[in-house]
C-alpha cells in the first residue's frame, strides 16, 4: 500500500507535465489543425521568461503571470507575420514552423549563452502524504496543471471566444456570416496556445535544465498526447496524458525506461489504427 502512494504521485506528476505541455498543442494542432513544430520553443520561451524575471529581481510567481503574456504576444506576432499564411497547406506549416524553431533556438542561445540557466523554484522541501515524503513542488505542479486544465475547458465551453473559435473551425464561412472575424479568432487562438505552452515552460523550469534546446524534448510527445487523446477536443488531452503518463510510469517500474517509452509510442500507433479519432474525439 505504501509503495502505491509514491507510484501514483509519480504517475500524476508525469501526467501533469504532459497535460501542461500538450494543452497549447491541443489548441494549435488539435483544434486549428496547424502542425506547429515550434511548439517546444514556446515552452522554452516561457522558461526563459522566468530566467529574465528572476534576473531582474522578480520571483517565480511574477514569472508565472508574465510568461503567458510574453507567450501570447510572441504568438500573436508570429501568427500575423507567418502562421496566418500557412493555414491552407500542412506542408508549409511544417516547413515554416520547423524553420521558426531552429531560429528561436539559436537566437535564445545567442542571447543567453549555451550553459544551463540557473533559476529558483518555490517550495524547496517535501510534504508528508500518508507517511510518505514527496517534493512539495511536484504536488503544486499537479494541482496547478489540473486547475489550468479546468480553466481552459471553461474558457472553451463557456466564453464567447471559445464558441467563436469552435464555430470558425467548423466553417470559417459560417462564422463570418455570424459576424465573427475568423482571422482575428485564429490569431487569438494561436496566441492562446503559445501562452499555455509558455506557462508550461515556467512550471517545468524548476524540474529540468533550462537551455535553448529544452523544448524539443516535449514536441513529439505532446503531438502524441493530442493524437491519442483525440484531436479537436480539449478534454481529449486529459485522456491522452492520462493514458500515456500512467502507462509510461507503470512500465518504467518493470522494464528499462528507454524500452518503456518506445513501447508506449508503438502502442499509440496501434491505437490510431483502431481509433483514428483518438480515445475521446470531439
Amino acid at each position, binding site marked *: 500500500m505504501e*509503495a502505491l502512494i*509514491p*507510484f501514483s*504521485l*509519480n504517475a500524476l*506528476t*508525469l501526467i501533469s*507535465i504532459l497535460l501542461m505541455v500538450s494543452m497549447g498543442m491541443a489548441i494549435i494542432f488539435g483544434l486549428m489543425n496547424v502542425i506547429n513544430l515550434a511548439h517546444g520553443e514556446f515552452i522554452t520561451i516561457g522558461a526563459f521568461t522566468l530566467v529574465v524575471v528572476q534576473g531582474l529581481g522578480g520571483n517565480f510567481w511574477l514569472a508565472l503571470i508574465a510568461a503567458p503574456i510574453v507567450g501570447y504576444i510572441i504568438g500573436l506576432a508570429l501568427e500575423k507575420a507567418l502562421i496566418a499564411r500557412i493555414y491552407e497547406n500542412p506542408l508549409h506549416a511544417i516547413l515554416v514552423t520547423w524553420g521558426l524553431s531552429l531560429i528561436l533556438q*539559436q537566437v535564445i*542561445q545567442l542571447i543567453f*549563452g*549555451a*550553459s*544551463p*540557466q*540557473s533559476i529558483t523554484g518555490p517550495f*524547496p*522541501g*517535501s510534504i508528508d502524504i500518508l507517511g510518505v*515524503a514527496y*517534493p512539495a*513542488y*511536484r504536488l503544486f505542479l499537479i494541482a496547478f496543471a489540473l486547475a489550468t486544465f479546468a480553466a481552459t475547458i471553461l474558457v472553451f465551453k463557456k466564453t464567447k471566444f471559445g464558441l467563436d473559435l469552435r464555430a470558425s473551425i467548423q466553417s470559417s464561412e459560417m462564422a463570418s456570416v455570424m459576424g465573427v472575424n475568423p482571422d482575428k479568432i485564429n490569431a487569438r487562438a494561436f496566441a492562446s496556445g503559445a501562452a499555455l505552452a509558455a506557462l508550461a515552460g515556467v512550471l*517545468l523550469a*524548476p*524540474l*529540468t*535544465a533550462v*537551455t535553448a*534546446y*529544452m523544448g*524539443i*524534448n*516535449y514536441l513529439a510527445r505532446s503531438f502524441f498526447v493530442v493524437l491519442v487523446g483525440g484531436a479537436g477536443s480539449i478534454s481529449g488531452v486529459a485522456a491522452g496524458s492520462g493514458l500515456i503518463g500512467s502507462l509510461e*510510469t507503470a512500465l*518504467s*517500474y518493470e522494464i*528499462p*525506461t*528507454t524500452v518503456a*517509452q518506445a513501447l508506449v509510442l508503438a502502442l499509440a500507433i496501434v491505437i490510431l489504427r483502431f481509433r483514428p479519432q483518438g480515445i475521446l474525439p470531439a
Partner: protein
Amino acid sequence: MSKSNVTRRQTLATLGKGAALAGVATLGMPAIVRAQSGPIKLGFLSGLTGLETILGETQLNCFKLAVSQINAASGIAGRQIEFIVEDDQTTTKGAIDKARKLINQDQVDATIGLIASLTHVAARSVTTPAKKLLMYTTYYEGDVCERYFFSTGQIPNQQIDPSVEWLTANEGKSTYIIGSDYVWPRKSADAIKAAMEAKGGKVLDAEFFPFGTSDFGPALDRVKSANPDFVWCMCAGNDLITFLKQFNSFGLGKQLFSQGLDDVFSQAEPELTNGAISDQSYFMGIESEENAKFKAAYRDMFGPKPINAIGEATYNAVYLYKAAVEKAGSTETEAVIDALGQVEFDAPQGKVSFASNNVARSNSILARANNGDWDVIKDFGQVDPVVPGCSL
C-alpha cells in the same frame, strides 16, 4: 559565437590565400619539403551548436588559448600555427564531412577536439584510414586502440577505480547507478561494478534513461526503496542538471557522486551541485603555478568563465603536439606519432605524457563541490592508463 571569431576566421581565410599563392611559387619542390616550411595547420573539430555547445565552447577557448600562447612565443620550432575551426553538430554526418574537409581541403597536420563518443568514432573513420593524427580530449570509456588516435582525457581506470577506492572506504559499500542511456554510462557501469566488487561493495541496480528525460521521479522512488550508501549519477549534459534538480527536491539524504560534474556545471548551478563529489583530471581549484598562469591567461582572453577537464585536456593536447613536432623535427605524421610517446608537458593539472596505449597519463582528483568551487578531498596523483590488451 562572438564577433571576434568571425574576424579571426576572415583573417585566416586571407592567410590561407597567401599560402596558396606561395604553394604555386614552390610547385617544383617535393611535397614533403614544401609542407615543412610555412605555418603548421591544426584543425579543431567539436560540437559548437546543438546540445553540447557549452562544452564545445570551453574546449574551443582552451584550444585558442594554447595556440595564441604558442604563436606569441615564436610558434612550434619557429613556425606559426594556423587553425581552422569546424562544428560537427554532434552528428556523425557532420563529424565525417568536417573531418574530410579538414584533412583533404585544409590539409591540416593534426585534428584536435571532439566530445560525444559517436563523433570520435565518425571522425576516426576518416582520419585513421587517411593515416592522420586525431587527438581526442574528453574523458571516455577508453576502449580504442589505434596508432593514429590519442586521447588526453581520463579513462575508467584513472577515474572510476580511484573513486571507488575512496567511496567504499568512506561512504559505504553499496551504490545505485543512474545514467543516460548510451555507451559511456553503460560501459562505465561495468567498470564500476567490477571495482565495487573488488572492494567488497555492491552495485544495487543500474538504470539508464534516454536523452531528454523530463521526470526522474520513479527512479528516485526506487533509489529510496533500495537505500544505497551513495548514488552514482552518469547522466550527461542537460539531463545531469535535470537529475540534480529532482534529486535535491526528493531530499533522499544520500551522498551523490558523478564523474560528469566539473567547474562548468558547478559554476552554472552552485546550489544544485553543492556537496556532490566528482573525480576529474583537472579542477580550477588546483593550486600550482602552472594552473594560476593558465587561469589568468584564460580570464584575460575570454573573461571570467569556468574551465573544465575537457578544456584543459585540449590545452594539453596542443602543447603535447608542439613538443612532439619539435622532438621529431617535422610535422610528418608518422614521426610526430613516434615522438608523442616520448614527450611530456607541465600542464595546469601537473605533468602529462602518453602511455604506450596512446592515452595520457593524467591526474585523478577527487573533490567535493562547495558553492561553485571544488574542495579537493583526495589527490591520487598521476595514474597510468590501462586499456586491456593494448600496446602500440
